[in-house]
Structure formats: C-alpha cells, structure tokens
C-alpha cells in the first residue's frame, strides 16, 4: 500500500500493516477505476475474494458501477462521505452496511485524490435482525425514502418502488412530483435546516401518471455529533381516503338534487291545479254569463301565472350548477358584512342584530358569495320570525366559531320558533310559511350551498322559543375541496 510504504522504517510499516488487518470493521482501498487494491481481513471474511476484482462486483455482485457511487464523489471533490447501502456478502446473502468513504491524497497534494478508503460495518449483528429490519422497511404500509443533502433518493422501500418505480439516485422532487426543481415549502429542507420533524400534505404523481395524495413526515438521520447527512421521508398514502371523501360529498350533492327535483315537481303540480281550476271557473262564468265568476277565475289564473314566474326565477338562481369558488377568506369578515347590511333594517323593526366572533377563526377556503347568500337567507328568516313572534326585546345573533376541526356559523333568534312538523319540512320541500310571499327556496338554496362546501346545516327550535340554525364545515373537507379546485383550475 503506497501510503503505508511511505512511512519511515520497516517497524512502522509492520505496525500499520497489522493495524490495517486487525481493525474491527471492513476496510477496502479503491482506485479511480473501481479496482480494489487492498483490503483487510474483516473485508475478506465479509465479502470474500477481492484480489483483481472491481468494488461493485465484490460489494454488490454487479457487472457495472453502481448508479450512485460515493467513491466517485470523493474522487471528484476530495470530501469524505457517509454511506448507507445494501450489498451481498460472500455467501450471497443481502447485507445492510454503513460506512465512510475517505480520500487518500497523493503525496504532497491536498487536491489530487489517489485512492478512496472505504470503511464499512454491517448494521446488524445477526442475520435475523437484519432480515427483520429489511422486511419491516419494505412492508410497512407507507412510503419510506432516505434522501441526501442533494435531495437524491439513496434508499426507498418496496411500497415506494411499486408506486413510483426504480428511483435510487434520482432527485426526490422529480420522483414525487415530476418537477425539475425543489418544491416550495419542502418539509425535508426544514428538517435539514433545523433537525426537527416536519409534516406536510402533498399530491404527487405515480409511475403511471396517477395522482397520489400523501401526508409526509420528515425526520433527520444523523450519527452523534455529525451534521445531518440524510433525511428520512415517511409518507402515508391518503389517496383512497380522499377519494371516499369526494364520493361522500358527491352522494350528498346528488341526494340534494333528488330532493330538489321532487320539491320542484310538487310545486309545479300545485300551480297546474291552480291553472286547471282557474280555466274551469272562467269557462263556467262565461257559460253562465256570471262576470263575478269570470273575475274570480281570471284572478286564480293570474295568481298562478305569477307563481310560475317567481318559481322559475328563483329556481334558475338556485340551480346555478357550479362548484363553489373557494378562496381563502376571513370568516369573521363574512359575519360583519351581513350584520352591517341588516343592522338598520332590523333596528327599524325594533330588533337588535349582533355579531359574535369566538376563538378568532383562522382563514378558511370558502365561496364568499355562497356563504353571503346562506347568512342572508338565515338572517332574513330570523328577522321575519321575530316580526311574527311580535315580542319585546327581539334579538338576532350571527356567530362564528373555530373549533380547529370545524368552522361553525350560527344564526339564532328569539322569535316565533317552529314546531316539530315544520322543522321536518324546512330543508326537504319547497316549504314556506310566508304564504305567497315566499317560494320556499331560501333554505333549500342555503342547504345546497352548505352541502357543496362539504358542510351540514341543522336547526334547533320550539314553537314560541326562537330558532337556532347551525352550519358546520369540517376544515379537512374544505381543504380537500380547495385542493381539488386548484388542481382542476391548473388542468384547464
């Protein structure tokens, strides 16, 4: 060995030689052509015959250099590296080892790397432990990758390889997302920077081009006292959960459409009965020469034509078939807007309208126009209920609360309230208690908008004791719709 031979005296040479042989881990010296020029006893024991062979043939039984070779990097920049790899031992068994690749410079040079010293140690003391570790790594039901500081994948488990293909040596961002540069807000970057665990919700692209939704957590991989050389990325695939979530929202949407169509048919049939009646009375009046009867029939016809016009107008506005246009808004602003809009109208009828904001709600992805319509409907209904209730000290409160998991809007009043029968009908038919003053579409529209946001509307009320409407939006659903919306926008 050249460096050893340069040491002065045969005594020292002998000491270095014995030290080299007896070190309790595998050592191999590699030249620029991947030839193993020397190796110690442990190396021979672990990997077998090495004389006259290439490192990749001995370590991994390959017939060409590995995709990512730490020695090539060390030859190129003279910097030592930590390695972490799976090789094949002398008996053909898979063996996981970690090691260091250290440059040996030509005499008198600090830049010309002549050899690379590879010192490796198998990770497991026993074959069983190693095998169990490997099974756990490959079979655990999530994706695991280890990336180096250049964001190249140095290891990936079986689940990951199945969905993303053969990825060793590729950049994580090109594998996960088919990008040519690092992602914004990358959790691995944060972990490399602060050594802490980070989490993020992401959408990637599988090897067949399919969308893969996953939640990734990144943690540092470093040996005591050393800087973070690698980051482990563990991702849970939530694609199926996302799909189910979308299906639930779609089913609820379809159920709402079904109920709406049934309600519409009911209203139209009643209008047709009115027209049929009007026609009959006019004809009878003409036959009898009874002008009063003709007038009565004509009024009935007129009333039902007007009803048709209002129904069609309201229904067109109700049936605007669109997905909610979600954008990040401050929920408290939506509440203040409605309260400011209705405060004077309410005050004129002696009703106090109040806003209540609980737990400073965070921004949320909502369709501001849609939520405005919902709150407008609920507040105007609440004011009407107070007018019918006709009691002193009438009050309507619009409240918003953030529980972290849910965003909740509430509209309460101390007006006339509703009994059980009415409560059963308000969201399911074109129901109105306002006679010819309403089409019964207000709460249906409200419910439709709420369902399009993946939310739920409910009511608590008793006759004479006011009403309490509650709209609850699960934040996870809002987020899921928001991400879908953004992806759809990009696709178009």
């Amino acid at each position, binding site marked *: 060995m050249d460096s050893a031979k340069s040491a002065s005296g045969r005594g020292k040479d002998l000491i270095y030689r014995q030290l080299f042989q007896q070190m309790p881990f595998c050592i191999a010296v590699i030249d620029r052509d991947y030839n193993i020029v020397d190796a110690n006893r442990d190396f021979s024991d672990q990997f077998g015959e090495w004389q006259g062979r290439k490192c990749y043939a001995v370590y991994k039984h390959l017939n060409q250099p590995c995709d990512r070779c730490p020695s090539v990097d060390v030859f190129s920049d003279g910097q030592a590296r930590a390695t972490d790899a799976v090789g094949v031992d002398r008996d053909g068994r898979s063996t996981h080892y970690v090691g260091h690749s250290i440059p040996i410079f030509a005499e008198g040079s600090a830049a010309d790397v002549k050899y690379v010293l590879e010192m490796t140690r198998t990770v497991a003391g026993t074959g069983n432990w190693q095998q169990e570790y490997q099974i756990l790594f490959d079979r655990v039901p999530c994706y695991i990758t280890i990336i180096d500081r250049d964001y190249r994948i140095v290891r990936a488990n079986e689940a990951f390889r199945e969905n993303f293909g053969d990825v060793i040596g590729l950049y994580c961002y090109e594998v996960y997302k088919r990008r040519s540069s690092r992602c914004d807000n990358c959790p691995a970057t944060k972990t490399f920077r602060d050594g802490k665990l980070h989490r993020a919700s992401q959408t990637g692209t599988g090897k067949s081009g399919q969308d893969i939704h996953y939640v990734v957590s990144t943690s540092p991989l470093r040996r005591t006292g050393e800087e973070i050389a690698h980051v482990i990325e563990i991702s849970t695939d939530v694609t199926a959960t996302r799909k189910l979530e979308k299906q639930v929202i779609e089913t609820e949407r379809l159920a709402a459409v079904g109920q709406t169509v*049934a*309600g519409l*048919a*009911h209203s139209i*049939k*009643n209008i*047709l*009965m*009115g*027209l*049929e*009646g*009007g026609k*009959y*009375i006019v004809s*009878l009046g003409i036959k009898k020469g009874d002008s009063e*009867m003709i007038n*009565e029939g004509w009024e*009935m016809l007129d*009333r*039902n034509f007007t009803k048709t016009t209002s129904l069609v107008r309201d229904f067109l506005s109700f049936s605007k078939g669109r997905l909610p246009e979600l954008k990040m808004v401050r929920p408290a602003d939506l509440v203040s807007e409605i309260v400011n809009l209705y405060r004077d109208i309410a005050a004129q009828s002696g009703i106090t309208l109040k806003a209540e904001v609980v737990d400073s709600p965070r921004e949320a992805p909502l369709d501001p126009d849609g939520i405005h319509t919902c709150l407008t409907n609920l507040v105007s209904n609440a004011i009407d209920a107070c007018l019918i209730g006709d009691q002193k000290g009438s009050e309507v409160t619009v409240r918003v609360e953030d529980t972290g998991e849910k965003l909740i809007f509430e509209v309460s009043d101390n007006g006339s309230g509703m009994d059980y*029968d*009415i409560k059963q*009908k308000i969201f399911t*038919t074109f*129901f109105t*208690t306002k006679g010819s003053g309403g089409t019964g579409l207000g709460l249906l529209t409200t419910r439709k908008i709420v369902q399009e946001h993946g939310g739920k509307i409910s009511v608590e009320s008793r006759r004479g004791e006011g009403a309490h409407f509650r709209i609850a939006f699960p934040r996870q659903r809002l987020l899921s719709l928001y991400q879908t919306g953004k992806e759809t926008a990009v696709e178009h």
Partner: protein
Amino acid sequence: MAKKKILIVDDEPDVVKWLTILFENNGYDTASAFDGSEGFAKACSDCPDLITLDISMEGESGAKMYKKLLENETTAEIPVIMLTGASPKLDEFLARMRGSKRPAAFMEKPVTDSQLLDKVTELIG
C-alpha cells in the same frame, strides 16, 4: 233527495276554491278544510259522503288524517280520494298504510275536472 256532501281537504286555497265550485256546479254540497286536524273535525261533524284529501299539507298531513278516519267508527267507512302532488310522499304513505284499508282512490295532481268528476260519480253516484 238530499244532495250528497263532499269534504275538500287541501292547504292550497286555489285548489279548495276550484273543487268547491266544480262539485257545487255538479249537484253536490261541499265543506272544506285546510289541514288534517280541521279536516278530521269536519269529517266527524258534517258526516260527508266522500272526502278529497291532499297528502302533503303544511299543518297536520293527509296521511295522519286518513289514519284517524279509519280509527273512528263514524268516519271509517267514508270513501276517500287521495290527491297527491309528490310521488315519494305517496310511496311513503302506502308503506305506512300496509295492512290497513286502502283509500277508495288515488289521483296524482294535476287532475282535470272531468277525471275528478268521473271518479266521484263512480264512488257515490
């Protein structure tokens, strides 16, 4: 011979007005009610020969009133024409009525004057 009496129960004022004129012009007496509870009270007090009954009403429903009619001795035999605007409501009603005496007729809105008169004549002459 005394005129036969028809009780019209519907929450739509225009329907009540039309049927009242239609039946009276064709030789019947009428009474009317706007929900199930008022309808049942009139069925007991006026002893009508036939009832036209809307299923879905704002107050007490037609289904509930029909059940009360069956449970009452003086009203159980009165023929009832169920008028319905919404098919799902009818299915729901039929499911609930399984095992009980069925109404004399079902008619789905909108009905014409001749369809309704034909049915009434068939039932009470």
